[in-house]
């Protein structure tokens, strides 16, 4: 099957802005003009979303989040978006930048094509509340349903629950999830009706299913064997490409599929 280049799969053109090799040496940071094309939505004004352009001068070390801050603080205070830690850990500022789901705080402006306006939209498939803020409730509902917490039926131990390095390695990849929803909102199956559990819920189920200290793996596999569970995954790899933590999500989903098959047959 040949790959069709879409906005989501096409690589960004090479950056035209070069930072000096040793910025720590006090060299001047290059500046450039960028245009941010933001998808605005305000239900108190109109039911229609509109594009709005903001042009500003930014530095080579700035991220998309810095540009959004500059707009909000200096140009239009009504621009609405989520961010908490602003350093790629809290997972608040996932948005669709140039057609791809990314964290605004981890996307450097210089790595994008600054000759054209940079489009910034809310993530897809979840109801937009205002500008870049979506209602995350359907996302968290799926997350809660897979029981994302340790369930242990034995006696409560007096010391820590021991685990070998190999046992820990088994689910290491899926512990990295920050629940930013970049994966789930990049999934075409989720876009249709929001009924699919979505990659993030499966990743967080995987984290406990393959944890040797957990005893509720069977219950989670039963939940994900639902008609809206893992079998709706079409392995399009959108989630793996969207994940800002580099989790091999499609592989994790495939491992859950295999675990369900092994259990049922």
């Amino acid at each position: 099957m040949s790959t069709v280049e879409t906005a989501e799969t096409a690589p960004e053109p090479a950056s035209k802005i070069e930072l000096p090799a040793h910025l720590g040496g006090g060299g001047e940071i290059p500046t450039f003009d960028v245009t941010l094309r933001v998808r605005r939505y305000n239900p108190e004004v109109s039911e229609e979303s509109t594009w709005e352009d903001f042009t500003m001068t930014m530095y080579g070390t700035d991220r998309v989040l810095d540009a959004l801050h500059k707009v909000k603080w200096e140009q239009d205070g009504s621009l609405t978006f989520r961010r908490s830690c602003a350093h790629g850990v809290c997972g608040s500022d996932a948005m669709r930048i140039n057609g791809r789901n990314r964290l605004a705080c981890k996307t450097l402006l210089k790595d994008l094509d600054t000759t054209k306006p940079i489009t910034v939209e809310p993530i897809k498939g979840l109801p937009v509340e205002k500008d870049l803020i979506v209602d995350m409730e359907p996302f968290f509902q799926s997350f809660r349903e897979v029981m994302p917490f340790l369930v242990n039926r034995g006696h409560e131990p007096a010391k820590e629950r021991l685990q070998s390095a190999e046992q820990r390695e088994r689910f290491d990849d899926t512990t990295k999830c920050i629940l930013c929803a970049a994966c789930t909102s990049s999934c075409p199956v989720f876009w249709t009706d929001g009924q699919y559990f979505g990659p993030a819920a499966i990743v967080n189920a995987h984290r406990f299913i393959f944890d040797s200290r957990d005893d509720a793996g069977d219950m989670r596999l039963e939940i994900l064997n639902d008609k809206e569970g893992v079998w709706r995954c079409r392995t399009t790899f959108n989630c793996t490409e969207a994940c800002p933590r580099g989790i091999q999500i499609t592989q994790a989903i495939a491992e859950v599929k295999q675990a369900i098959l092994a259990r049922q047959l």
Partner: protein
Amino acid sequence: MSSNVIDAPRSNSAESPKYKRSKGSGSSFEMFAWLFMRLSGVVLIVLIFGHLFVNLMLGDGIHAIDFGFVAGKWSNPFWQFWDLAMLWLAMLHGTNGVRTIINDYAERSGTRITLKTVLFVASAVIIVLGTLVIFTFDPCPAGAVVDLPSFCPVP
């Protein structure tokens, strides 16, 4: 104040995603459908390429295909079974594929149910007709004179 309360943007439109996911049925149908797609796919590769090789490459190849050729094959239980397996597996494989596409792309339940009804009726008709043809096929129809297989009695 109540007039100032604003509904969530997509909560009242027909195409809005549901907040509450419908409760699962607890059946493993989707798992078996997924498994069937993989297994039937592998078997179909053998069946279809075997079919193409025997019909198009062996002997006189494509020039040998006429009524007599097909009639000769279907008087042999081996080829009856081969074609029956190919018919059933290909139809079920294709139907299940289109079913998942409808599930993925139809946004309203009404559209989804209508499309799937049409799909299942069409598949059932083709499977039943095809099975009937394979089992009730008469290789030596009365009155025919051309292209009959060699084992037919001479009229």
